[in-house]
């Protein structure tokens, strides 16, 4: 079984609108809404939790489906999201670099 790791693409914008996740692509400003499975993947995509754990802890319990089938479906969804630059996927844990802040002052203006 392949181990896949998911991370959110830091260039997209995202907001949950009454439970429905809106995502705007950083590549071309295309707007997407995610279904429940994709939303769970998005919310769990921390770069360090492998996909099979996300499926086991968040999807199988939520949808009462067979683990093997759920994993296959989740991988398809994850690869689709990666195709649209919404998620990054890798067989290694993903560490995202952070841009240094312009200022650390708490009361600057």
């Amino acid at each position, binding site marked *: 079984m392949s181990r896949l790791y998911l991370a959110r693409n830091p260039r997209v914008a995202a*907001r949950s609108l009454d439970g429905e996740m*809106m995502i705007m692509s950083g590549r071309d400003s295309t707007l997407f809404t995610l279904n429940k499975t994709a939303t769970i993947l998005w919310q769990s995509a921390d770069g360090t939790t492998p996909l099979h754990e996300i499926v086991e802890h968040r999807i199988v319990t939520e949808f009462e489906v067979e683990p093997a089938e759920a994993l296959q479906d989740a991988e398809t969804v994850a690869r689709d999201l990666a195709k649209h630059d919404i998620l990054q996927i890798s067989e290694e844990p993903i560490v995202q670099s952070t*841009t240094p802040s*312009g*200022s650390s*002052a708490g009361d*600057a203006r």
Partner: protein
Amino acid sequence: MKGLLEEMTEKALARNIPLSVQLDLTYRCNERCVHCYLDHNDHGEMTTAEIKHLLEEMAEAGVFILTLSGGEIFLRKDFFELLEYARRKLQFCVKLKTNAILVREREAARVRDLGVESIQISIYSHRPEVHDAITLVPGSLKRSVDAIRFLKAQGLRVVIANVLMKQNMADYPGVRALAEELGVECTLDPTITPMMDGDRGVLSLGIGQDELRQVFRDTALVGDVEEYCTVSTSPDESALENLPCSAGHTTCYVSPYGDVFPCVQFPLPTGNVRKQRFIDIWRNSDEMNDVRSIRLKDLTTCTSCSHVGSCSRCPGLAFMEGNRRGPSSQDCERSYARTGVPSANMLAKAELKSRLAQSMPGHALQGQSTSHAAANLVQIRALPTMARATA
């Protein structure tokens, strides 16, 4: 077929969620545009910590599209810190409005790294002598155009905003050609906003009927002129239940001092985020709820106007004229220029003018002591072609 954004907007409207907010980070500016409505002195801008807290509240309230504007946003020393917070931590879809004269390669790269959706830059003319005479900053056109190139080189979406005034009316084709050469979008807007203190003198910079007519008959701008300039048929009863615009419904505006308004062009105070939570102002402000209650059928004068179904009436401009349920003369002027048919507001004013003239022969309007009469006089003077239209 509805677009996804339209669907999400409808959903936000139904659930009373402020989907889109403009936040002015500062009113300070490094240009002094002749038509600007702002007081550029700093009267106590929100601090970095206050703005971060506000951004958190806005994200929690469901705000998705965040427009950062000013004043000039790059004058804030903490601008990139705030932008990073809005993008990386809170995942807003961020749009910027700027003159960009402080944007060089380094800033452009940073804006790109932070995944900004678009950058709107004000360009008044393709000629420095015209643009710089409006911004009152020598060399500003070159700086802004250089910035557009830097931002485009980063693959960013740039939109030129061209405000039309008497001073630059002749140059809009040149600005559009410049936009095409730079590979960026271009918007044209003849709206001049009264000063924040209510002074309407700045409106004299706006273009007149002849120029508006010319703009509305430019096929490069409007496509099919005949179709664009046709008076629309009267809307049915159900259309009168429609909302006048999104201000206060799915959008609002926050000033650098934390004041919340329905829109940047609708200076009706509804609360201050230094004293109340953003979501409490959005949901519970009496003023915000009053704005929210207004439907097309509630508009005085406009309901009987032949343009009611197609008018671009701005509720904020109407508010600044004295009645949030009343007409907006600038939009009446536009509808008239577009179709040749005067609005109900224009006809009413013409009638009032005629009655006043008849009641005071030889005295014009002198001696009218009420502020109401004075306000009407100002509006009548702002409609120089009305007599011709109603003759």
